[in-house]
């Protein structure tokens, strides 16, 4: 929803303000929950429900903090040989497992059509980048998502395409900005993080609307092993 200033001092202040905003949401829930528990008059089932809410909100705060810390201090890329097929499958498994409880089944297909087995890149960072993009696709109302890799001269193009709700031209302009989100309870740092990682590898990321349905996110990563 907001763009950070180019002036570093202002950007830090804005980042802290927006992050504080996101932390204040779970904090508000925890505070009210504690007050309700303090009364000691709640029926046991309600008490258990409120304890669950507190527990989930603390987990959420941990995740928010992890995301913010990671975004502000992504370490320099450490390129090593990365197995492309393995990378795509690991990313798919990690993300689909994390949403298994809340979403209806979404078919996530993996295709390595690079003709290569390996690329030179920071595998951890690349996995993080792809997970952020895939997580976004899985929340788009899609029934099918494809995660693929292909070659374009010396670069590898990773693509995450879905048949979900698509993206408007206005949203496409903002989607990689920190704290931009259209989803309930999200921090809006995932795709901003993906962009940073792509750029840190000398690459780029872009999103296109795949009318009549869906979105394609393309990530260009130079193969540093060549």
């Amino acid at each position, binding site marked *: 929803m907001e763009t950070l200033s180019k002036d570093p001092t202002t950007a830090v202040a804005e980042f802290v*303000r927006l992050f504080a905003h996101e932390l204040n949401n779970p904090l*508000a*829930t925890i505070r009210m929950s504690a007050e309700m528990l303090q009364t000691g008059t709640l029926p046991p089932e309600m008490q258990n429900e*409120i304890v669950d809410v507190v527990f989930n909100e603390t987990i959420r705060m941990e995740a928010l903090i992890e995301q913010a810390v990671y975004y502000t201090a992504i370490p320099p890329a450490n390129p090593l040989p990365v197995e492309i097929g393995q990378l795509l499958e690991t990313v798919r498994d990690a993300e689909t497992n994390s949403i298994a409880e809340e979403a209806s089944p979404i078919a996530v297909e993996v295709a390595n059509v690079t003709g290569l087995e390996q690329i030179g890149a920071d595998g951890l960072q690349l996995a993080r980048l792809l997970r952020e993009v895939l997580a976004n696709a899985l929340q788009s109302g899609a029934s099918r998502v494809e995660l693929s890799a292909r070659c374009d001269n010396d670069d590898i193009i990773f693509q995450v395409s879905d048949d979900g709700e698509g993206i408007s031209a206005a949203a496409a302009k903002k989607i990689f900005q920190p704290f931009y989100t259209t989803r*309930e*309870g999200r921090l809006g740092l995932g795709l901003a993080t993906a962009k940073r990682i792509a750029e840190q590898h000398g690459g780029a990321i872009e999103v296109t609307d795949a009318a009549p349905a869906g979105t394609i996110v393309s990530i260009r990563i130079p193969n540093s092993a060549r």
Partner: protein
Amino acid sequence: MDMVAVEKKNILVVDDEKNIRFTVTHALTSDEFEIDEASNGIEGLKKSQERSYDLLLVDLRMPGMTGIEMLREIRRRKEDTPPAVVITAYGIPQQLLEAASLGAIDYVRKPFSIQTLRSIVRTILDRINLPGDFLPVTATEHLEVAKRKLMFGDGDGAKKHLQQAIALDPRNGEDFLLLGVCLLLEENRDQAKEAFQRALMIDPLNKTASEYLAWLAA
């Protein structure tokens, strides 16, 4: 003695945070209040068209349609708009001012206590129920009438009551804060600045006055 059933007040909570809705609903549900929920501005707008609410509790920052956009749309479509309390995780003067221009002059900052929330809800409902011919006598009563006037878009009327409240008790920072808001709404930035400064002189911890001043200085 016959028992008279007290009609429950209907409150709509509009917040994209599921757990905020859950806790606010449980914190307010009582013999006095009946709570309905909406998870975004569009749903809030739809519900407020379908049913009449006594009060809206509205988060400002929501994906899709923001709280301000929702309030503006409700006001555009309906003459008789319910009062609204803005819920905000971070006070941004521009947004608070925009909310005030739509009649939402009360707000709670996240994280807030249940007691604060209940108290603000009761205060607003009492304010709305003030008889039309109510004649304020004390400074506190003038402040409440000023707030009521502002809620219904009568900035001039609000200012007059605030000036009377200040004349009766010049040590209440809230009077100056609200006067500053009234002045800002009529784009009188210099006098608004003075009012916020007075509010801060009386109460150096007045966060909102300090945020308005910083915003005016920027």
